[in-house]
């Protein structure tokens, strides 16, 4: 047996396949046209509903209405009008000449009823209340049309046929329009929400009390003290459920209603309670409170709550997908968990009850500096977990956090991308920056950090630039009238100021390159030695630093002044908090002058501090020297004095709309610092501290 070789047909190329697909695609309807088709079908349906309904029902409707009118007239004792002809009235008028008045199609209420029913079925059918609304409206229209017919007939009976026609055609047409409109309004009113379930009143004021993040957008202008509508005295639905329906049916209907209703009350809870509620609701079955769970996935912004939801959905994948919204939940959870890292292993059973359930993971930059170390310790002391970040692999703070990563310097290429990678890997809830020079680089990636669930609160970039440039800072303070030493940017200008002088870089930090010049020669040499120098007269008096926290709206939340009794490398190692209204006022003015928000520390001098011992309101002379838009190295003293700047700032980061409290502090708390060590091997593994207790 031989076989003729059959040449294999060449495989179609991708472009061929695409071309064929597109050719087929030309006959499909897309986008708006697809939606138009759906709506046109509804309109065709409504039109057919009216036309077919009219053709089928008009004869019966005419007979029914004639019968109803004649029965009503019989009951009123009027026997000169008869409905014996079926679809017409026989009227024995003033001269007893019989007159036949046919009830034409335009006299019937059928057209109005069909129009309303078409509106109910084809436009408003999603709201089941429309059925009751239509029935009441239909009864009204039928009754009103009977009245119109009877009045027309009486006009014909007592006057003449012209009066009947005039009344029916003109007055009756107006009546027809009026009662049809009222019928429409009845139907709409009964279809609308009762005042207790509505979200806005008739003048557009929000009445539902929904929290902002959970409210439907634009449903009501928010004003205070809007009275919520009172519910009806007799609750028909409640009566039906409690008294008439069997308990099993009532429960089944309630469960069905619950599946489709968003439980807005969740939005009012705090994140911990929301997460607990989500776990509880999901635990009852995804198909029970589906709408609420979808609402959480839609509106929730807190990562811990979303984690709770995704975990709950992931744990219930055995549950039959009885509702399309469960599919949506499963898809959302899939996407959420795909972009989030694996959660840390759960605590063993029995320990979980004692675990702090809503610990934040907070990234802290500048972990090697004293401010970074202070912030890390404060966060860990509050029970949070810390992701320590620094450019120096030997930075001590990297050993003090729960996780650590090394970043490039903020001014190096790749800082932002590396930071994003680290954040994507660890998924911290918030980032605290303790190095002011990093703000500019961070500002470029805040949106992308937020997209990864990592919130930040950075001060205004102009304000930061002003603070970091000592010449610009001096100009801003002088413009605002805040006491600040005269500042010179050239030797000539400096020589005109009274000496001795402090010469320092305009963009320096941490007391680096700061020179004291006693003579003109020393001043000139210092201007050569210091990069980008400025000069100020050296101030007399006692030096202080004030730790401040400013709310997003510019409100000063706290100002903790402390004496810098001894410093090493620019860091306060001995000091004490003190109370002074003059210092607080000047510090507040300085912060406002640059428009800063968030944490900051203000350094300055009190020329004559002695009166403050006896009177904290003494009008002492205060001069501000520097303002650093970040936490200070001496922060632990302010924390020890009772002002929780770090915790409050963290709340301000993760809940931007939350009102932040004023923080008071205890004056007279003293600090004496000592060295502390951490040990680690070449591979970074910790080495036991032999001196640890």
């Amino acid at each position, binding site marked *: 047996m031989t076989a003729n070789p059959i040449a294999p047909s060449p495989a179609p190329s991708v472009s061929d396949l695409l071309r064929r697909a597109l050719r087929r695609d030309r006959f499909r309807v897309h986008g708006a046209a697809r939606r*138009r088709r759906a709506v046109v079908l509804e309109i065709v349906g409504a039109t057919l509903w009216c036309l077919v309904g009219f053709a089928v029902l008009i004869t019966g409707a005419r007979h029914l209405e004639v019968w109803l009118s004649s029965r009503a007239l019989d009951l009123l004792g009027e026997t000169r009008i008869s409905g014996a002809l079926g679809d017409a009235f026989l009227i024995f008028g003033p001269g007893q000449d019989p007159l036949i008045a046919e009830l034409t199609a335009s006299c019937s209420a059928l057209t109005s009823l069909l129009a309303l029913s078409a509106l109910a079925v084809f436009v408003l059918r999603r709201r089941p209340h429309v059925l009751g609304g239509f029935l009441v409206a239909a009864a009204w229209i039928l009754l009103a049309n009977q009245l119109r017919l009877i009045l027309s007939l009486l006009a014909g009976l007592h006057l003449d046929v012209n009066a009947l026609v005039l009344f029916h055609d003109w007055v009756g047409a107006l009546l027809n329009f009026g009662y049809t409109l009222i019928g*429409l309004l009845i139907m709409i*009113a009964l279809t*609308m929400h009762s005042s207790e379930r*509505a979200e806005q*009143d008739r*003048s557009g004021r929000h009445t539902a009390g929904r929290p902002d993040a959970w409210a439907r957008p634009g449903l009501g202008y928010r004003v205070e003290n809007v009275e919520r509508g009172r519910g009806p005295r007799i609750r028909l639905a409640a009566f039906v459920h409690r008294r008439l329906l069997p308990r099993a049916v009532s429960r089944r209907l309630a469960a069905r209603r619950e599946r489709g209703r968003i439980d807005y009350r969740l939005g009012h809870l705090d994140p911990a309670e929301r997460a607990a509620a989500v776990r509880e609701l999901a635990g009852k079955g995804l198909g029970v409170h589906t709408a609420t769970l979808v609402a959480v996935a839609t509106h929730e912004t807190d990562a811990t709550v979303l984690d709770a939801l995704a975990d709950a959905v992931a744990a219930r994948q055995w549950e039959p997908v009885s509702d399309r919204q469960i599919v949506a939940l499963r898809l959302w959870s899939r996407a959420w968990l795909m972009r989030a890292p694996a959660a840390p292993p759960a605590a063993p059973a029995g320990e979980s009850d004692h675990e702090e359930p809503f610990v934040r993971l907070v990234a802290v930059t500048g972990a090697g500096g004293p401010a970074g170390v202070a912030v890390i310790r404060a966060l860990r002391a509050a029970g949070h977990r810390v992701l320590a970040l620094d450019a120096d692999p030997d930075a001590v703070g990297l050993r003090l956090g729960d996780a650590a990563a090394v970043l490039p310097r903020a001014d190096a290429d790749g800082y932002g991308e590396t930071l994003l990678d680290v954040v994507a890997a660890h998924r911290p809830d918030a980032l605290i920056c303790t190095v002011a020079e990093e703000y500019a680089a961070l500002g470029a990636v805040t949106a992308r950090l937020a997209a990864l669930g990592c919130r930040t609160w950075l001060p205004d970039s102009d304000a930061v630039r002003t603070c970091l440039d000592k010449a610009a800072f001096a100009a801003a303070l002088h413009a605002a009238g805040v006491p600040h030493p005269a500042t010179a940017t050239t030797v000539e200008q400096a020589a005109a100021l009274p000496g001795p002088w402090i010469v320092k870089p305009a963009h320096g930090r941490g007391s680096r390159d700061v020179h004291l010049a006693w003579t003109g020669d020393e001043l000139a040499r210092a201007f050569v030695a210091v990069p980008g120098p400025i000069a100020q007269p050296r101030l007399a008096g006692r030096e202080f630093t004030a730790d401040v926290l400013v709310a997003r709206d510019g409100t000063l939340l706290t100002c903790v002044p402390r004496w810098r009794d001894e410093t090493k490398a620019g860091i306060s190692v001995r000091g004490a*908090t003190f109370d002074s209204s003059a210092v607080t006022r000047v510090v507040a003015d300085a912060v406002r002058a640059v428009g800063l928000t968030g944490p900051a520390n203000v350094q300055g001098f009190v020329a004559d501090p002695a009166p403050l011992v006896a009177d904290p309101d003494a009008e002492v002379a205060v001069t501000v020297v520097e303002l650093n838009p970040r936490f200070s190295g001496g922060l632990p003293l302010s924390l020890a004095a009772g002002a929780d700047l770090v915790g409050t700032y963290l709340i301000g980061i993760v809940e931007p709309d939350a009102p932040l409290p004023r923080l*008071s502090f205890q004056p007279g708390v003293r600090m004496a610092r000592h060295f502390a060590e951490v040990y680690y091997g070449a591979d970074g593994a910790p080495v036991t501290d032999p001196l640890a207790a």
Partner: protein
Amino acid sequence: MVTVAPAPRHSATAGRDAEHHRWALLTYALLLVGAFVAFGVDSTLGVIAGALNVIFLAYFFRHLAFAISAARWAEEDLVAADVGVEAYAPPLAVLVACKNEELVVDGMISALLGLDYPRDALSLVVVDDGSTDGTAARLDAWAAAEPRLRVLHRAPDAGGGKSGALNDALAQIQAEIVVVFDADHEPERNVLRRLVRHFRDPNVGAVMGRCVVRNGVESSLASTIFIDYLSGYLVNEYGRQALFELPAYGGANCAVRTDVLRALNGWNPHTVTEDTDLTLRVLLGGRRVRYDPAAVDFEEAVLSSGRFWRQRYRWARGHQKCLRDYWRTALRSPHLRLAEKIETLMFLWVYHIPVLCGLGLLITALRGFGIGGPAAIDILPLSTLLFAGPFAELSVGLLLGRVERRAAWLLVGFIPAFGLSILTATAAYFDGMWGRRYSWAKTARSGATSVRPAAPAPVGPAPVSFARRALPAGVPKGESR
């Protein structure tokens, strides 16, 4: 696609010698008289009534289609999750033109300063358009306390109305997107992010948000306008987007791509409805307008029938002029499909329909006196068509807005409102055709429901101290100060 600006016909209504169409009016009159002579008055009026019924039927189905589409999809749209709004924040400038707005300007600035958008990417520019009240002083006080806010002052005779003021501000900014509010508007905090998200699509030239009336409590007219806006934005504008992807840019609470705007030579100062004008120019330039019902701001409704007349007259006058300016270009546009051209023309015709309604009522009244024959095409009674479509939209608007039940009875107020709109549109039509001069009529404000924090003083009182101090005898215990 590079936007090609269609040349707007700046032959103008506003300010300069107005164009006129008296020859067209004369032609219509001669045609009518000719028809009377040739076919008789009754037949002619019957044919006109039939033609009107066809037009009304077309608009009835248009209203019904919008109502159906909104009833189907709008509620889910309102609560649909925002996607990636925090990750996309191009440089943006908010522009507001103010002329004698001292009653509302504080609330507006306060709302602007509370907007959620990266500070580095947002600039706020408010133009004082030659105000003669305290607007300029209030703006300066805000600017002194808020470095983010820039205030531009225009001379009282600078001209150009709102368009002129906005064009001056446009020349001063460097941003990818421009968002415009009016002085009586108080945007919701997230409005910028929601408006801007649509510009991810490079084909989008402008985005419209939803305006909501906030002072419905002040008068029954304001309540009626509140419902009118619900219907207009949640149903009509929504339906235009859902069915034709042709929503209108509305002049406030809306965003435009700056390069598109500059390519179109900015806002047209020779029209009194610069919004409709810009909508047409963006569409005819090949870009799209989008609508976001979740990008909300609150504004004031007018409180008196006099102000209502002036406002609606301006809208009618400007909109009718847009029809005359753009209908030919729209028909020839390669950027619009057939269905889109039809919808664009119907949209441009919207302010002519009340004129035809008036004509229909006149013909009906003449029939009452025995003049005029039956309509050649008597599909439905005229009265039904006049009211049924708008009432379907209004009903769906109330339901979507989740307004309390009692508001349904306010719909009765729309019957006189329809009557008034017939008068305003008819007056605007004849004035526009006759070429009567008309310039921008600013809408007066009430300011009663405006959130009105005063401009912060440049230097406020500082707190005395945060230290815990011993309380003097007799002072109740609590936070020290």
